[in-house]
């Protein structure tokens, strides 16, 4: 197991106080776009340093230019707009619901937000919305399962292929909808089809493909999830008792082992014990460690401590503290 423990930080990472002030200044015409860009680069360099210090195995750009998990994809897609603010699950955080009025498709090349190659070392990790989440969070009159397949084929797949060309090696899909709101039995086949679309793109490019559920208990859906065409399935250990799962886990398993919504950093010993216990019991083909959700609900300094703790947990689980 030791050589198959991979730690990375997914999702939108919080901005520094300086960057928050700069973006506020830009909106009030008291700062320039150039100043904001410089702050973003500084934040990105700092986040890369944190990931290195933590000893993480893949590097994220922290999605520092993203306003929410959909926005850059909305901006480069035909037939998609974003206006209405909607609560992001049970958080004091809001996204603009993608408004989809026709078959969506990526209009231009890869969104500029991914163009941080010079600052982010390889191997790189990209976080994208799962097609199920995307289709359910959308404001649309279209049939949602049709939309889910279209989003996978015409929006997410071209983006994944673009990412492969740019040195990204892990595609991490965020899927909180499934475990927060649930899924109808009749929707699984379409979801699988949508994931298969992306699976073909990741497999052709030797990318690792992770589907990560969070904000809810994964146990009720875990059997079905394990038959999905992905390399690993992620679960949120804040909400899920994996001790309740019996049997072997014959694929990759991502453990969301740090609470991205709590300002208290989890104790090292307890976290290592928990991860080790699950790994020993389930024997996954590869073990991925990350936070249970994106860290943007935390102030940056707290998030930084969590990322460093993630690295510590990974080293202890590998037996190389």
């Amino acid at each position, binding site marked *: 197991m030791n050589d198959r423990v991979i730690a990375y930080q997914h999702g939108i990472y*919080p*901005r520094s106080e300086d960057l928050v002030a700069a*973006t506020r200044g830009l909106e009030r015409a008291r700062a320039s776009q150039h100043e904001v860009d410089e702050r973003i680069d500084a934040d990105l360099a700092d986040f890369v340093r944190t990931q290195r210090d933590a000893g993480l195995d893949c590097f994220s750009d922290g999605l520092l230019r993203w306003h929410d998990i959909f926005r850059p994809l909305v901006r480069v897609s035909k037939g998609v707009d974003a206006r209405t603010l909607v609560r992001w699950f049970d958080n*004091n955080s809001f996204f603009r619901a993608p408004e989809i009025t026709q078959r969506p498709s990526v209009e231009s090349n890869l969104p500029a937000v991914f163009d941080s190659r010079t600052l982010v070392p390889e191997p790189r990790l990209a976080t994208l919305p799962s097609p199920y989440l995307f289709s359910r969070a959308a404001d649309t009159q279209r049939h949602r399962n049709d939309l889910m397949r279209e989003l996978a084929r015409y929006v997410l797949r071209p983006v994944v292929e673009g990412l492969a060309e740019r040195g990204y090696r892990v595609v991490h899909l965020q899927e909180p909808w499934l475990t927060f709101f649930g899924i109808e039995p009749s929707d699984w086949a379409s979801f699988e089809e949508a994931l298969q679309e992306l699976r073909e793109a990741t497999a052709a490019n030797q990318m690792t493909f992770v589907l990560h559920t969070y904000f809810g208990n994964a146990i009720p859906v875990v059997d079905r999830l394990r038959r999905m065409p992905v390399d690993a399935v992620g679960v949120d250990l804040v909400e899920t*008792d994996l001790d309740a799962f019996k049997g072997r886990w014959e694929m990759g398993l991502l453990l969301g082992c740090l609470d991205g919504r709590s300002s*208290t950093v*989890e104790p090292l010993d307890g976290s290592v014990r928990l991860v080790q216990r699950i790994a020993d019991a389930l024997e996954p083909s590869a073990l991925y460690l990350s936070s249970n959700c994106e860290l943007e609900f935390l*102030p940056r300094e*707290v998030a930084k401590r969590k990322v460093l703790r993630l690295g510590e947990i990974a080293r202890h689980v590998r037996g190389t503290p």
Partner: protein
Amino acid sequence: MSSTRDILSKPLLTHELGSLDKPSWRVKAYAGVALDERDIEEALSWGMRLEVPDHERLLDLLGRSPLDDAQRQEVRRWSSRYGLRLEESAGLDVVYDGEQQRSEMYAWAVAHANGFEWRGSVRAFDNKYYSKAAVTGPISLREPYHNAEFAFLRSVAGAPLKVPVTGAYTIADWSFDEYFIRDHDLALPVAERRKQRHEARRTLVLELASNLIRPNLQALIDLGATWIQLDEPGASTDPEELDLFVESFNVSVDGLDAVFSTHLCFSDYDLFFPAIERMHGCRQFAVGFANYDRRELGRSDEARPGYAVIKRFRDLPYRPILGLGVLDIHSDFIESPELVRDRILYAVDVFGDPYRIHVTADCGLRTRSWAVAFQKLVNMVAGVRLAKRELGLSQV
């Protein structure tokens, strides 16, 4: 008090809802940053446009920068006058000052409470962030934190006042809990952690209601406040805690001698039912709907999808008034008077009673420029006039 009850019974009453953006001259002068010509011009032009009495004195004060502490406090009061006049000039029936003297609705309350420590900025949406604190000790009121502004506003306002006060549940929801939640070890069983979390949350929310909000409300009432709005934008964040939200409202206001209303926004409002059936002390719910609505004219169910839920407010057993949000505060789109009219007439048709409908923005307009905020409010008042005309109601 009786005059407040009279005002509340006015059909299609228009009122303020929360904060306005802070003018650059206020922000800079208060922060000790040098003002430029544009700031002075902004103070002058809005002073003239809103007919702020004696606004030349503000220009004189700004010209003395850098300001000492007393002068900086005076700048804040000028900002209050401007905010108040903006709402009065737009024609609102009930006003406040756009919370010009407060730092922010959450930060202001926390800064006047014991038991918190600041942790840093967290995103709410887009590029909008708020400072988030952690609860680190027992909660109590350090000092009443709206009395000074209320006393000042009462001395300068021409229209009746409603005091917005951030509610207990929202303060709890927007804070980290490092005090009541004792154990953060994920190795504990989920059910045990969840039980601890719920118990800790309940203790925190009710302690905020009884030890922070209630004494602050009592201080306002002692000073003469008669209508107080508890702002609870976080109320439906956790659908499993709506009973706790209702309990916290009741603990905050039960037995106090004033009219209490609450403001809810950016939520799935269906979640509030049936929990708010027990919120008997709430005379009015001010709720944001325009964000979810279409922008085309029309008064049918199909034309007004953002207002589909209002019949559930109509059917509440204690027959509260609905403060109908008709302005999308997250967009520079200026609602026409006709669009406002149609939203109102749809709601009046659903309620069958214009006396149970008040008219307001979805939420505070602080993310909009003053030019946009003012025009939205002017059109809102114009829309009310159109609606009243169709309903045959007095324009007074």
